[in-house]
């Protein structure tokens, strides 16, 4: 058991480094959430201590909920994210199925064409996208954002999903064909349920950048009715620079839903990344 004794200092060293880095990663998040529950005196007097009964105060949260229309922004973000996600997954899976299942002329060319968007960011086309949206009257609508995010998410979705669809057994699909199922039924009834885990991976990858994006809401939909929560938070933070309670509360309100979702889905996300889909 000489290896075990030799590796003990190394194990301790590994834990020390990882713990240090974990602390660095979590410190700002914890600091913000902790201080959002304090009074102004508590925030400045002892920023590093958790709220005590003396410093506990919800004034920040009442200001935020009273001032900003955060519930509404939240709904906008939710609508945009869920709708874009639905279209990315549906259209992406359909295209991935066509590319991985059928041999046709131009198959690999089409795959390459769709993969272009993985490397070239859609942001570079912003000038023309704005013109397009102005021309079609979609500026300041959530539809504009949904369209853009659908286009943004599709390349990676098609790429990852077609890798997974290649693994679905041919015998199963051919059995379906012999039983007289149409190609559409094979796709929706046989293949889609089998690739559900990889769909979840794609969903997480697609969702995070959409929820967090600032660029397109700022440019395509900055109006009060269509603000997303990221843009709303940005503007709110700009207005309340000196109201630290409100700022910390707003930051915490923006962090918490994402954090809760992440804790629920982190296993799925990490399994997706490590399963080799993105190699």
């Amino acid at each position, binding site marked *: 058991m000489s290896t075990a004794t030799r590796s003990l200092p190394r194990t301790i060293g590994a834990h020390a480094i990882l713990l240090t880095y974990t602390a660095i990663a979590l410190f700002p998040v914890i600091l913000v959430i902790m201080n959002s529950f304090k009074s102004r005196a508590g925030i400045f007097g002892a920023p590093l201590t958790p709220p005590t009964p003396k410093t506990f105060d919800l004034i920040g949260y009442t200001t935020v909920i009273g001032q900003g229309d955060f519930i509404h922004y939240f709904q906008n973000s939710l609508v945009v994210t869920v709708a874009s996600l639905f279209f990315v997954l549906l259209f992406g899976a359909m295209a991935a199925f066509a590319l991985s299942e059928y041999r046709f002329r131009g198959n690999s060319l089409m795959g390459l064409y769709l993969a272009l968007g993985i490397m*070239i960011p859609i942001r570079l086309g912003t000038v023309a996208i704005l013109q397009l949206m102005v021309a079609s009257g979609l500026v300041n609508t959530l539809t504009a954002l949904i369209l853009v995010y659908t286009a943004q998410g599709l390349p990676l979705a098609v790429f990852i999903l077609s890798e997974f669809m290649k693994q679905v057994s041919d015998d199963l699909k051919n059995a379906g064909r012999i039983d007289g199922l149409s190609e559409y039924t094979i796709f929706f009834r046989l293949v889609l349920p089998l690739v559900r885990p990889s769909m979840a991976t794609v969903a997480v990858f697609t969702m995070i950048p959409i929820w967090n994006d600032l660029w397109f809401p700022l440019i395509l939909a900055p109006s009060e009715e269509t603000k997303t929560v990221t843009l709303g938070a940005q503007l709110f933070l700009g207005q309340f620079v000196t109201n630290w309670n409100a700022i910390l509360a707003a930051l915490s309100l923006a962090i918490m839903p994402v954090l809760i979702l992440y804790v629920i889905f982190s296993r799925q996300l990490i399994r997706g*990344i490590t399963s080799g889909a993105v190699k």
Partner: protein
Amino acid sequence: MAADIRPKRPFRWHIAIFLAPAVLVYTAIMILPLAGTLQLSLFRNIEQHQVFVGLDNFRTLFGDPNWSVNFWNALRNNVWFFIIHMLVQNPIGVMLAALLSSPRLRFAAFYRTAIFVPTILSFVIVGFAWKLILSPLWGVAPHMMDLVGLKSLFTPWLGKEEYALTALSLISVWQFVGIPMMLIYAALLSIPDEVIEAAECDGITGLSQFWKIKLPLILPSIGIISILTFVGNFNAFDLIYTAQGALAGPNYSTDILGTFLYRAFFGFQLQVGDPNMGAAIATMMFLIILGGVCVYLFLVQTRLRRYQF
């Protein structure tokens, strides 16, 4: 022709139907606007008409000191932004992944989850939270440096021209270190046990095992991470905009191509927005990113050997 000999197959409509929605949305919202932007950079708005001016916008961008000073400044800053990511983010990511993948490590799942948390947060949160922490008003950063006796080193980093860009790059590193960590971690996990066991039989363990066995095997993943970092950095905007505003202060010292594009396109304060110049800058960004991707595809990827297990 082959078609004369083979019986002609009926056109398979279902393939077209499966492909159509994705291809249509992707083409209409992504490819055509991208092409349109490139095209727009060759035009100029003269008396309410778009007039073809050839490469004049680029001549302005590089020749007119009003533009060229800002452009080169933004490009230089962007290169520095990228260098910091390559030198800090990726080595830290590789190190964390190597530690995480060591066998029988306890709490590995906890570390993995925790270190990835900043990556899922939006730039707005990250930018503002760090702005507050580094603010001399709140005093968290000086207070913490005081604990280790380094208080004299504290300055308001985000407010000083010489430090602001580096500070922001490090904030961005803090946010995104989870991505190289995860990808390298995945690559390390996929190294088969036999290879590691063979190395151990030859007496190669610990650090030398990492340098001699594992690192060469994960080089393709490091290549992918580098190109992802490159594309992400030369396309960055949100963090600078949130933390320093569209003017990328102090005195444009944190201006990168994304914020420069935003100002050129929309205008800011006295400057009037100019879609054509915006398109010209976007074209330059496109060429830079395309150049990076080509270097990666043709020089790096072909030379890295992929090991199939």
